[in-house]
């Protein structure tokens, strides 16, 4: 009878020997949370990394598995990933788990190009060491179908809208077409929390944390809830606004430039891009910064450094812009043979940055692995007030409590547009 037991085990043993996984060649594994959609990933591999004189395997990963993998490799002490590419928000989790290699030396090695100062500073994550080298940047802008322009309220300049005009515009559209054509990316993978942190709050309260439950905030939520009456209810499942735009479900949308690029490239004559609207405290907007970092005790540090140098070269920055719609993190002037989509988005981003009432805010720093819970506070507030129609004051009180607990736990200092604070950023 033990013949059966033997065969069962031997089958497992044989396959263990046979298929213990193909040995990884000497290529650098470039793990990234950016350019995940299939066309963009292919563009990264062929156009951007095509000319790199070295073996690189570009693997896009969702944030969850990305962080899970690096933390697991760090904990197990066997690191296979060569280079990391991610948004500013992903790095604090890795930094607080000491999974990142300090790369101040790499930064000094890139002397021949001018990396944008504020982004280099961001790369320190509020500590003395350089955790990531700025890789590329983007921002959030608004996009609109040309058919919607006819419903613009009197005297409204689309390139310098206010939130009230946006609300009025949306109302006109739904009155005219009977459908609610304003859209926001409030789906599971949407970037709605950035809209509140970088756009709505700074525009209405000139703050993100301290004024979280001030009266201005109450007025803000009230007006936003009013506007939401003209927003397409499917917004709570929109992740990439380019899709509903191309499906004509939505005519006016807010999203990350890279998540609108497909629409601009595919139908450049149907869509326009324009800066985010302004509120009483100015035109709040926030940059999206992506960086390159080397995992602690990475297999081949030299190769990683070589790849960082390659990625931050001006010509590669331009290829990246063309391929995935992210703008250079290096101070350079853009050539004019760029694809139509990039030109459309680029104009809106620079108009937004150069606007008179510009009120730029930075990305949160020092939140450690609580970054996502920080976003959850804003999303929960939105869910309760706008979707479930809860009382604004009570909700803000409760959520302010969570925010305060979060700030004390992480001890994160305030960041623009809040006034700098010595200890943890206070929540009034």
């Amino acid at each position, binding site marked *: 009878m033990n013949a*059966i*037991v033997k065969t069962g085990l031997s089958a497992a043993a044989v396959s263990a020997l046979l298929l213990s996984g193909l040995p990884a060649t000497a290529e650098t594994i470039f793990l990234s949370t950016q350019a995940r959609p299939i066309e963009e990933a292919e563009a990264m591999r062929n156009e951007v990394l095509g000319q790199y004189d070295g073996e690189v395997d570009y693997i896009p990963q*969702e*944030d*969850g598995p990305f962080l899970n993998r690096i933390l697991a490799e760090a904990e197990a002490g066997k690191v296979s990933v060569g280079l990391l590419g991610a948004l500013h928000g992903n790095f604090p989790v890795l930094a607080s788990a000491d999974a990142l290699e300090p790369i101040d030396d790499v930064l000094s090695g890139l002397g021949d190009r001018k990396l944008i100062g504020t982004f280099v500073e961001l790369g320190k994550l509020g500590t003395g060491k350089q955790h990531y080298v700025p890789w590329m940047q983007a921002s959030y802008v608004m996009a609109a179908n040309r058919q919607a322009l006819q419903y613009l309220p009197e005297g409204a300049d689309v390139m310098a809208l206010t939130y009230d005009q946006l609300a009025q515009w949306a109302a006109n559209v739904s009155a005219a077409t009977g459908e609610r054509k304003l859209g926001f990316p*409030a789906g*599971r993978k949407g970037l709605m929390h950035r809209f509140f942190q970088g756009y709505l709050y700074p525009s209405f309260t000139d703050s993100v944390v301290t004024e979280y439950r001030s009266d201005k905030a109450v007025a803000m939520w009230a007006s936003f809830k009013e506007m939401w009456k003209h927003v397409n209810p499917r917004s709570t499942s929109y992740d990439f606004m380019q899709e509903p735009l191309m499906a004509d479900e939505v005519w006016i949308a807010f999203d990350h430039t890279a998540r609108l690029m497909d629409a601009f490239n595919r139908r450049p004559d149907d869509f326009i891009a324009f800066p985010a609207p302004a509120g009483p405290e100015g035109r709040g907007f926030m940059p999206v910064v992506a960086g390159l970092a080397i995992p602690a005790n990475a297999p081949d540090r030299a190769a990683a450094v070589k790849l960082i140098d390659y990625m931050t070269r001006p010509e590669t920055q331009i290829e990246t812009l063309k391929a995935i719609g992210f703008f250079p993190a290096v101070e350079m002037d853009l050539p004019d043979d760029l694809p139509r989509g990039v030109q459309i988005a680029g104009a809106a981003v620079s108009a937004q940055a150069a606007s008179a009432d510009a009120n730029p805010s930075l990305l949160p720093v020092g939140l450690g692995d609580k970054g996502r*819970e920080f976003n959850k506070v804003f999303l929960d507030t939105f869910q309760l007030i706008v979707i479930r129609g809860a009382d604004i004051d009570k909700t803000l009180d409760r959520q302010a409590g969570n925010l305060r607990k979060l700030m004390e736990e992480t001890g994160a200092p305030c960041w623009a547009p809040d006034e700098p604070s010595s200890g943890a950023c206070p929540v009034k």
Partner: protein
Amino acid sequence: MITERTLPYWLLAPSLIFLLLLFAYPFADAFFIAFRAEGQWTLENFRTMIEDINFGLSFWNTLLLVLIVVPLQLAIALTMAMMLTKIRAGRDLVLYVWTIPLGISDLAAGVVWLALLSERGYINTILSSLGILDGPALWLSYETPVALFIAVVLAETWRATAIVMVILVAGVQLIPKEYNEAAEIFGASAWKRFTKVTLPLLKPSLQTALILRTLLAFEVFAVVVALGGRDLPVLMGEAFLWQFDYRDNGVASAYAVLTLVISIAFTVLYLRVLRVKEEAQ
């Protein structure tokens, strides 16, 4: 030495050890995390879980989903199983068609039903061509929770009825034909024969099908996310968010432990309600 008495244990050993190695350690680790925070034993994670704004909704949604989908699937699967015994020509083909969903991953099922039910989807096309609708109508949004719930029930029923049917088809086969014929001779109507002969004898299969399907139903996730996004929170969806989005595997494990406890409760319930006496095997 392998003797007559110990032989069964030798045969079970390989699969038992395999499961222990692969499941026991991570399971203990995850279970352990649920009850610890900052280094000491606490129910902190459970408290955060319960206080979360989505907890109540996700709990009731999951429970309701299970209580509707599982019985519905059982009914459909039972009808299919019974019909299969009657079909002669093309029986293999019909069985093949009905077991196709077994091969469909919930990823693909989510995509398919999204295409069907989205406001510019196929069902709306049919409805508007029939004149019921005059344009694209919205089913999958928080404003129409009932429609969204029905959409998820439809998708889940489509995806996971096959597993129940296969178990029941096997169960029906194991019942010797003579019992049914005997009952027929005693003048039992088709319905009577079904309730008095087939169903009681099908109890063991019903029990297995119910337990298995309920366990999997509590882990429903991919289809709900594909159709409902954030609008229909479910336990596993929240666990996934806490694990991967909010990076707090303590609360994630708490959700998992809760799911486990409910699943065990349902299993015990089935074992008691559908108790199959040894002799009546």
